[in-house]
């Protein structure tokens, strides 16, 4: 019995100390960032002819319902030098036809250089209308998201590329904010920058812009707001400060194209392409011996819809687990390898112990507790004390992240929404066994060799 309690205690304690440490680093970085932001004029960079040109890559598969709005929103971003490259990944609906008609596209004599591997390109299209001169559309055979992004990289003209999901809503100043670290850093080469992804469910959207931010009415979606706030404000912010960032959300990120190409582009067989690319780029730079940095900005840059039913949530989480295991396995050489700096000594071990193994241990723990309970060996007083410890610390971390949100971006205007979010913090630890279960399922799928994204039901906002 005490074997079990000791083990759970030490592991949880280590995990909590780690999260506490991450929270500390986040505070430090957020405070500096916010203070500096007070003196930053983003308008200068958005309007300057000296700002670097950026290529925005938008892979689209069966997005006929929202694609026109998405493209129009992107073409109206507040930034001077950019191009939008829409990649139709062999959609089976009318995505391409709708875009072609709306923007008056014609096929060009584009000579396609397959520098990065991708499926066959049927054609590269430009608009007859000069108003849409910034738009390029690639029509290609279906190959998945990574494949589409490789195709987009092959066509992009600029060294800075932004990858975004076609169904995400982008903040108008997101490009300016993402480009800033690339312009600021002089000592190290910035190879990628990410920002905060927020949850779109229940928000009021008009013409591709967020009109009013609301906390989702659906409980699962509202719970994910808390989860995302904690992950983005406490987790990634700290990892950026510690130079151990391994993930830039696939929903939106900016990358140095030269480094992506050097690292071999997106792996078309990879399910967790966003994480795998960042790890591979970091490996490439470390092996080249060049000083580099992956930065992160805490500003909300894009809004995306999250699963609001259990089936979709399960599909998403099992896919995340498969992606994580695959990336960890593929780059296991990094583990505790000094050559890769903080990535090897901190970032990789963290993801291995606390993101991959922790849910597995938790699941085993739940099973073991049930077994001990049935066997009558369990000391319920100690058990509940241990659970109360885990429960209180989880709520504490969630409260902390909501406090951050309140002190910094203050996105939820209504007090009711914030109180609801704090209320969810009390229920959230009870959901953890479910998340641990999804992780176990994901691991089983890895063993069984499952591939593919699964389907996530979109409800619209």
């Amino acid at each position, binding site marked *: 019995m005490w074997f079990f309690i*000791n083990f759970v205690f*030490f592991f949880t304690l280590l995990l909590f100390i780690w999260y506490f440490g991450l929270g500390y680093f986040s505070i430090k970085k957020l405070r500096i960032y916010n203070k500096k932001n007070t003196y930053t004029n983003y308008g200068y960079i958005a309007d300057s002819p*000296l700002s670097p040109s950026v290529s925005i890559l938008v892979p689209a598969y069966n997005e006929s319902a929202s694609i026109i709005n998405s493209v129009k929103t992107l073409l109206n971003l507040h930034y001077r030098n950019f191009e939008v490259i829409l990649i139709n990944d062999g959609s089976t609906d009318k995505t391409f036809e709708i875009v072609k008609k709306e923007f008056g596209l014609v096929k060009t*004599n584009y*000579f396609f250089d397959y520098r990065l591997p991708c499926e066959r390109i049927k054609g590269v299209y430009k608009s007859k209308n000069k108003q849409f001169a910034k738009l390029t559309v690639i029509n290609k055979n279906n190959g998945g998201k990574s494949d589409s992004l490789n195709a987009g990289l092959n066509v992009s003209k600029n060294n800075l590329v932004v990858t975004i999901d076609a169904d995400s809503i982008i903040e108008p100043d997101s490009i300016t904010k993402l480009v800033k670290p690339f312009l600021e850093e002089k*000592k190290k080469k910035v190879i990628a920058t990410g920002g905060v992804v927020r949850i779109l469910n229940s928000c009021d959207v008009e013409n591709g812009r967020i009109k009013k931010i609301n906390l989702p009415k659906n409980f699962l979606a509202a719970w994910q707001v808390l989860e995302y706030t904690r992950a983005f404000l406490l987790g990634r912010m700290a990892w950026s400060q510690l130079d151990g960032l391994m993930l830039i959300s696939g929903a939106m990120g900016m990358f140095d194209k030269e480094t992506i190409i050097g690292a071999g582009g997106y792996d078309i067989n990879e399910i967790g392409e966003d994480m795998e690319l960042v790890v591979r780029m970091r490996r490439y730079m470390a092996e080249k011996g060049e000083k580099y940095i992956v930065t992160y900005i805490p500003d909300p840059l894009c809004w995306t819809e999250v699963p609001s039913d259990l089936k979709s949530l399960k599909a998403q989480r099992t896919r995340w687990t498969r992606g994580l295991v695959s990336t960890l396995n593929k780059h296991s050489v990094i583990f505790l390898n000094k050559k890769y700096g903080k990535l090897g000594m901190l970032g990789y071990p963290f993801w291995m*112990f606390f993101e991959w193994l922790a849910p597995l241990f938790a699941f085993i723990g739940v099973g073991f507790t049930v077994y001990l309970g049935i066997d009558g060996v369990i000391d319920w007083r100690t058990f509940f004390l241990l659970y109360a410890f885990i429960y209180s610390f989880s709520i504490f971390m969630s409260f902390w992240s909501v*406090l951050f949100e*309140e002190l910094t971006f203050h996105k939820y205007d209504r007090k009711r929404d914030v109180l609801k979010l704090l209320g969810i913090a009390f229920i959230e630890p009870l959901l953890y066994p479910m998340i641990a279960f999804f992780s176990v399922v994901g691991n089983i799928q890895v063993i069984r060799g499952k591939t593919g994204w699964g389907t996530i039901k979109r409800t619209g906002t």
Partner: protein
Amino acid sequence: MRKFKLIVPIVIMTILFVVSFMLQSKYSSLILENVNGGNVEGIISKQFIIFGSGFAFINVLIGSIVTCFVVIFVILVFVLVNRRKMEKRAKLKSELTEVYQSKILDALEGNGMTFDEAEEFKKICNSEFKKAILTNQIIDVALMLPKDKLGLLREFYLSMGLLFETERKLKSRKWHNKIKAMKELSHLEIKHFNNLILKNINAKNDTLRMEAQIAMVRLSDNKNPFEFLEHLDHEFSTWEQITLHELMMESNMEVPDFSKWLVSDNHDVGMFCLRMTREYNQVEDVENLRNMLYHPNEEVARFAIEVVGDLKLSALSTDLKKIYKDEPYYNKLEVVKSLGKMNNPKTIQFLQHVVDGEEDTQLQIEGVKAIRNCDDVGVIALQKMLDSDYRDYKILIKHVLDNRIN
């Protein structure tokens, strides 16, 4: 080997588990002796009886739970109170901003302030919160005011004794206070502390450094706004460079000759001057630009190549051709692009060699583009290439000739 690596964390966890058990056993046996000896009065012994041998953790657990719930409660109260406080503060700030702005404008009109007005402003300065709003409003008014009235506003500012406060902020150890002071001084054109500001142009903090540069440019009297470049030893980021360029355009200041700083020891200053040389078309000093093409720093050399192309300096095409062979890939690409921008038929032969000799598609595409840019002579050359048996250039040339793409 890869699969083996994944077992490592599991082994570490097992070790952690065993060590914790050993520690527990050692610790609990001491207390067990105590309990067996009949001494059950101590708190630890009591816990031992209630919770068994895990008493050491129990204290830690109870302590952690209590701490967590206390912090949770404090955060909850803070969130509720802070929201109300912030809303009140924002409302008050917006009200005061409006009131102070009109008061300042009133005070600047006519023959200066009355005694009552002066007393009222002095009262405002007794509160730190209100004084900060007043100072911000003075800066806002300074931005709106015509130049000839700035003197009046400056006098008003000095009469409030705010300069003393500004000096204190400028000498503060906190970087954001220094920035506030520099903003006040530069917008009101008070030059008493230029030496103190100049010290910050090499500050470690990038925001402070940039604000110091902006202040120095604003306080320069248009004589030599970029004099600070001579003292700049620190990195000079593209962000800072863009901000200064925007500031130049905003304030319509006289543009200095940037070529004199091209050869600066600070590579970033060289890059900035290359940017400005291009923006303001300063092509008089070709020699310095030529030297930049041979710059030992790969990035600076690449940018110099780009600028020479943008400025269409055909006189340097021979140098571009000369350096091509030994340059790294991305610099080579830039050389070809730059030659294309020059629209010089004399480069066609060289460009044909690039297209024929290079295996890289990007270099070939840029080579063909560059040839096409050489007007009729270029088109004839492309026609010859189309007819050539040496290589099939059809797809490449079709791509380049499609104006919708390029």
